[in-house]
């Protein structure tokens, strides 16, 4: 089996804290994976390492068998947890920006998704609500025909209806051999769309199973298991 994302003894140390401690993780193709853990458990650090935005303090992270770099950025689509589009841009300009940057950006698909949401290409990012901005950013990322999608908190700040829209967009747009990693702590909302879950606890992986395995073996939902494991 070829792996899309692999971590070998991956460690990240910040000056005062150990964010990831010798993490081993293997993710194959064609899956939707939930990267779950409470705040500060290392989810964003892991995603940033895979993107090459941070460098490991120890161990390795491989995307499609390669260390993060120009080649891996071509096949990896990343949705950061924060808004990063310049406020002066219009939706149409943001699309052009992505089209210029990425060979695998499917303009027709992006335009279609914008139109369906009733977002005009002339609308400025500045005037959009938080939910609309998040949708536009998701459209940009999901319109790339990538192999690996890393979505950091894609449903964090939006209302339940927008959440459904976002999840539907993910289901409808990921390609058969692509893998989507969704980091979140809002498990209940996304449990049904996940194949596998990875629990991250204080920088270590405490569980990696399929959703149906959790339900079969533990007799409870991932949400219930999460509440049990991470009980404060």
């Amino acid at each position: 089996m070829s792996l899309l994302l692999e971590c070998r003894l991956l460690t990240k140390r910040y000056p005062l804290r150990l964010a990831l401690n010798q993490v081993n993780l293997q993710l194959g193709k064609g899956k939707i994976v939930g990267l779950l853990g409470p705040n500060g458990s290392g989810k964003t650090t892991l995603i940033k390492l895979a993107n090459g935005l941070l460098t490991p303090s120890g161990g390795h992270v491989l995307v499609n068998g390669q260390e993060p770099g120009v080649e891996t950025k071509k096949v990896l689509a990343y949705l950061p947890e924060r808004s990063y589009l310049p406020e002066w841009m219009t939706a149409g300009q943001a699309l052009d920006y992505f089209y210029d940057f990425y060979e695998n950006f499917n303009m027709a698909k992006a335009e279609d998704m914008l139109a369906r949401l009733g977002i005009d290409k002339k609308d400025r990012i500045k005037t959009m609500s938080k939910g609309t901005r998040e949708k536009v950013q998701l459209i940009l990322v999901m319109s790339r025909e990538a192999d690996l999608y890393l979505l950091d908190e894609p449903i964090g700040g939006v209302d339940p209806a927008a959440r459904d829209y976002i999840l539907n967009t993910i289901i409808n747009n990921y390609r058969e051999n692509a893998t989507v990693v969704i980091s979140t702590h809002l498990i209940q909302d996304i449990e049904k769309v996940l194949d596998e879950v990875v629990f991250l606890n204080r920088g270590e992986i405490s569980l990696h199973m399929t959703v149906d395995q959790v339900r079969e073996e533990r007799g409870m939902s991932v949400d219930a298991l999460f509440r049990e494991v991470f009980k404060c």
Partner: protein
Amino acid sequence: MSWQFASDRPIYAQLVEVIQLKILSGEYEPGGKLPSIRDLAAEAAVNPNTLQRAFSELEQKGLVHTQRTAGRFISEDQDRIESLRQQYAKQAVQGFYGRMQSLGYSTGEIVTLVTERMEEENL
């Protein structure tokens, strides 16, 4: 309009039940074409791989079959569907009967209650 699932059992097993019920009730007609995995996954708001697994199970039960390139179809075997339907009905009755008994009703009382209910329906 996504489907509802219980939290304590595997989702694929619940998908099997929902789709099976649609076939047994005739909502999905014998020999009819099923929606594509992608469309149905979007409708149910579930993972396409989970739905795929549910379809494999329905294929094993002989309720669904795949024709290469053409898609996925409901079985044309009406006898098979009918026998599963009767089996399902039997289980439903057994479940009901069991619950009524645990409430302390005798068989006679249960029959009376069901008859009364039927008369209400007719009105």
